[in-house]
């Protein structure tokens, strides 16, 4: 249905464009969601010292590799934003897809990691540590997938030089997803 963008959307009494303001609030609400989950994990990790045995079985290399992948993809989306600002829609498009590629690599590494762990008997129900491990990383992965999908949609607009400002917005979201992983990595992989 052809909806005309309301005049309201273009107003900016605060000086921050509406879209960007909204994304910051989304990031704010996600902080509390992930924060709640991670706080529970931290509390139990402190209570149950023996979880260090289970967490010894996580694959630190895979975790580090994924951290590297996400950091790199964050760089790519910053570049995509830079080129969007320069009105270079082709370069921007390419960098968006590089970011999506990064997300895909992340998911691939994770799938291989999880397959190995599940086959070794560490499933989501085998022990509470593993329940957290899969749940936290799983919710994070859902956010990665959502980010990739939205990036894909935005990239096609960008190719047609439309809605270029949205590259920054999905970038902010993607950086947040990166930051969550920056904390998940030491919590799940390093604290042994």
């Amino acid at each position, binding site marked *: 249905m052809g909806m005309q963008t309301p005049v309201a959307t273009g107003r900016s009494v605060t000086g921050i464009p509406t879209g960007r303001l909204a994304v910051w609030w989304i990031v704010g609400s996600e902080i509390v969601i992930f924060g709640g989950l991670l706080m*529970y994990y931290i509390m139990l990790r402190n209570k149950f010292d023996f979880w260090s045995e289970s967490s010894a079985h996580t694959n630190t290399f895979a975790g580090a590799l994924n951290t590297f992948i996400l950091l790199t993809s964050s760089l790519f989306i910053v570049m995509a934003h830079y080129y969007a600002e320069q009105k270079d829609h082709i370069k921007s498009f390419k960098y968006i897809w590089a970011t999506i590629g990064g997300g895909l690599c992340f998911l691939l590494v994770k799938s291989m990691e999880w397959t190995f762990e599940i086959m070794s008997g560490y499933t989501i*129900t085998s022990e509470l540590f593993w329940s957290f491990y899969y749940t936290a990383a799983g919710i994070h992965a859902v956010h990665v997938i959502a980010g990739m999908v939205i990036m894909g949609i935005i990239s096609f607009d960008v190719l047609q030089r439309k809605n270029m400002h949205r590259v920054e917005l999905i970038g902010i979201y993607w950086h947040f997803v990166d930051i969550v992983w920056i904390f998940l990595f030491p919590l799940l992989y390093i604290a042994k």
Partner: protein
Amino acid sequence: MSSSTHAAHHDDHHHHLSFWQKYIFSTDHKVIGMQYLLTGIFMGVIGGYMSYVFRMQLAFPGKEVPFFGLVTAAEYNSLITNHGSIMIFWFAMPVLIAAFGNYLIPLMIGADDMVFPRINRLSYQIFLLSALILIASFFVPGGGFGGAWTAYPPLSAKAEYNLTPWGSSLWLLAVALEFVAFLLGGINFITTLMNARAKGMKYTDIPIVLWMIVIASILFMASVGPLIAGAIMLLFDQMIGTGFFDPARGGDPILWQHLFWFFGHPEVYVVLLPAMGIVAEVMTTFSRKKLFAYKTVLFTTIATGVLSFFVWAHHQFIAGIDPRMANIFVVTTVLISIPIAEMLFVYIATLYGGSIRFTTAMLFALAFLATFLIGGVTGIFLGASGADIYFHDTYFVIAHFHYTFVPIAVIAVFAGLYYWFPKMFGRFMNEKLGKIHFWGTFIPFNTIFLPLFFTGAAGDHRRIFTYANFPQLATPGLQDLRIIATYSVVAIMLFQFVFFWNFFYSMFRGAKAGKNPWNANTLEWVAPSPPPHGNFDVFPEVYRGPYEFSVPGRDQDFWPQNEKA
């Protein structure tokens, strides 16, 4: 820039919208507001029906309830669980925040719509889905979830305990989706109020009801996160057998309680604030007086919001939490009564010396003050952990929270509906029927819940389907009180028919109303009644605050915000 002063001419006139586009898939905030209102009211009727059924069981245990049948113990649990859940999540929140918020925010700030109309539509669709899933849960094997709206594990986690395997997961899914819908909606409201205000509208020119709705959205957003995480964990416990809340595996049921109430307490302020906002608008208009202390109300509201995050464990005093925590929470709980009492004083001061006009809306607004006062005061009994050892899980608690919730979700809502009805539909509701509806609601409300303070103090436990096996409670005196409460429920339900008749009849046949029938000041009264798509021909600009009533030296006793000096 021209686009900021003149409305874009919306293309209704050369782009005929089908019924589906106009009413079902609309992105217009007014239509979406109506959708939330009607869905919320529909769910409220279901929730009300449930309370009728279980109160009949309590008054006449073991007897068949007309229009339901025999109530088994399991069904009783289902009824009370879903009554609570529906009334909070599918009635109070959608009507107070989503319906009034959606309808009023763009109009009152002089905008043509919310800043994200399609996300607005999406949020309603997700909300509708959540309501449908909840209703579906009543028809699955085992019936609707029976673990209380607070869903404490292990009762809520193990089907062998709650006896509603499908119902419990569907309930959880419905609640989770409702949270998502309100997160999306909240972002729309906050961003719209922050950014899309009319030219000249400073922070202190914003009508209080909008501040309240937006602050409520922020409170919701900041508190619901841990519970969403918790809901996912509980869902996994239910469906795939993880042990997040299973002590035998290292989980902790007390954690669920903390997750739930960390949200649950700010949640009550999430619904209180919009109600107080509505009452402020109605009271200022019908006493022809400025809000006594706008900035005080604003800062007190923010302080209340902040403090509301520090009181949650008063719901857990006897759950086995650390008593030193309990002490802290007693202090904060009693403290929070101060800003709210102060707001009530400010409201009373607003009325003082005013030229009061007793329209139906005003009657409901005044009733809000009186009844919420009782609710708030009885909360202090419960906030003292020593007294709470006795009162917890008795009907005293039920009476307390109904003396707060019903004023919030019913009385203030009616005040708002009677007040803004002429704007929404271009017609007046019938005042005589309104007054009958008012007294038929206000009096039975009190005769339902006042007795319950006494039965609660006498020891009536909550969530018990019959007192036949409690010799000290199965007395004729107490049973009489329960019967009075139940008959009052029937009465209050019957009087709601008066409202429904009035509401729907007046929509089509009510006396016509103009733009500003109440001679109010805020910007929604500048638009036509009902406002067209786009709301304003020419966007208004703001020159003063929203409550400039009875300003000395002017012949009119009101001074619209958009009128040039």
